[in-house]
């Protein structure tokens, strides 16, 4: 597997991974703001899947129709849809694409559900590797607290209830997240995760993230080309008309 840079794409893909509640979404949002303010071509992939795939996925989840295999396949379908329709064209157009979760989420989640690791990796082998992958490593208790403090309604699959780990959704979620963390840690070296200590303050983490991005990417390559300002002539007929914010003489 190769990164987008190794495949000769002009764009770069930056992914964040980590458990629910690790703060990765906050960090990628702040990274996006920083890049945008510098007027760079940046796109945050919000994982908008097409209506069709979304409809099948939500039906499967709502009606609890999914087995580990179909759960894995339907998410791979969803990922392929976003990959082919959004990510690849943007990366071809030279964007810095930021992804909140990438294939590693599937690697961890599907394997925890009992799918063979080689099979899952094979499914996703059409996807190139990110150019940078940040892994936000928080203590399990810290991330669990962040999620569970609000006593949210945990969804069936989100809590890993299909694994029959516990009949209590909160207990099931704890065990599930613990196993996810083990999987992430096991992948860390293999996929060159840039590990960020997510127990630190938001600002400290962001400082490190920005530093690494600036160091690893040549940000000047992603500057938006300035369009030439419109020529002064020929004068458009409208020019004589008063603009709304101008006081007519």
């Amino acid at each position, binding site marked *: 597997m190769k990164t987008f840079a190794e495949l000769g794409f002009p764009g770069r893909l930056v992914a964040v991974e980590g458990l629910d509640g690790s703060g990765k979404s906050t960090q990628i949002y702040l990274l996006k703001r920083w890049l945008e303010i510098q007027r760079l071509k940046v796109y945050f992939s919000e994982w908008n899947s097409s209506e069709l*795939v979304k409809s099948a996925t939500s039906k499967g989840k709502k009606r609890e129709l999914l087995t580990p295999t*179909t759960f894995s*396949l*339907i998410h791979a*379908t969803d990922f*392929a849809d976003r990959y082919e329709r959004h990510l690849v064209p943007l990366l071809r157009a030279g964007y810095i694409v930021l992804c909140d979760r990438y294939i590693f989420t599937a690697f961890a989640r599907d394997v925890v559900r*009992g799918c063979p690791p080689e099979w899952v990796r*094979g499914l996703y082998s*059409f996807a190139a590797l990110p150019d940078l992958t940040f892994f936000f490593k928080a203590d399990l208790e810290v991330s669990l607290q962040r999620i569970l403090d609000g006593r949210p309604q945990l969804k069936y699959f989100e809590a890993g209830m299909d694994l029959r780990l516990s009949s209590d959704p909160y207990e099931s979620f704890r065990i599930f997240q613990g196993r996810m963390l083990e999987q992430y840690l096991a992948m860390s070296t293999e996929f060159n995760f840039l590990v960020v200590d997510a127990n630190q303050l938001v600002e400290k983490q962001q400082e490190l993230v920005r530093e690494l991005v600036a160091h690893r990417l040549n940000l000047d390559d992603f500057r938006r080309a300035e369009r030439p300002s419109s020529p002064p002539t020929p004068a458009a007929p409208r020019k004589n008309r008063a603009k709304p914010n101008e006081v007519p003489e």
Partner: protein
Amino acid sequence: MKRVTPNHIVVPRRTPRRFYGHGIPGVDLDKLAGRLIVVEGADGSGRSTQIAMLVEWLEGSGHATVQVGLKRSTLVSEELEKAQEGNILSRTTLSLFYATDFADQLENIILPALKAGFIVLADRYIYTLMARDMVRGMDEAWLRNLYGIALEPDAVFYLNVPPEELVQRGFAKNAALDYWESGMDLGLSRDMFDSFMKYQDAMQQTFRKLQATYGFTIVDGMRSIEAINADLRKKISAVLAGH
């Protein structure tokens, strides 16, 4: 004392089973007492006619049957239908969507039916899905891994009918050629007839390639319906006897 009564019903002999690859987690292959029979072939090759006749015969012989086919899952069949109408999904996405449909039926229909001792008749299986994708340039190794979830059938029959005949049968049934069966998404030709011929030809070549790997039985689909069915019944009888 062994006495065969006129209504003696053959109990299918057990033979070892395997998945093509990693399979489905947690399935005990030894518990799958039924038989899985696959009929493959292009649209117009006579698959559904043959399957209907086989069901008659098998049920008449005292076997319980279940039928499966492509795009029939509870999970994604509706969405797949729409995806085809609109032609809006990219190659890998559509491929994985079909695999999801297959996996859903495998786990929810095929495997439980086999466990219950049914004879499962599949109107196409992974081979059509693989051939379609291979013709569209997808990586064979990737497809083999994807469909490593599939159970190896007890018999696979490929009804072989040349494109010239398929097109005639198609027109005898419908006034127009089907967009997908003509491979129009491939841009082989803007002429639909040309495209159909080229596409079906490519599909047959791919099937022959797959036959080398998966070893299915090629059945001459140019004979009479009855002759083909008699041939299939003979071969299936041998499968049930454990040969």
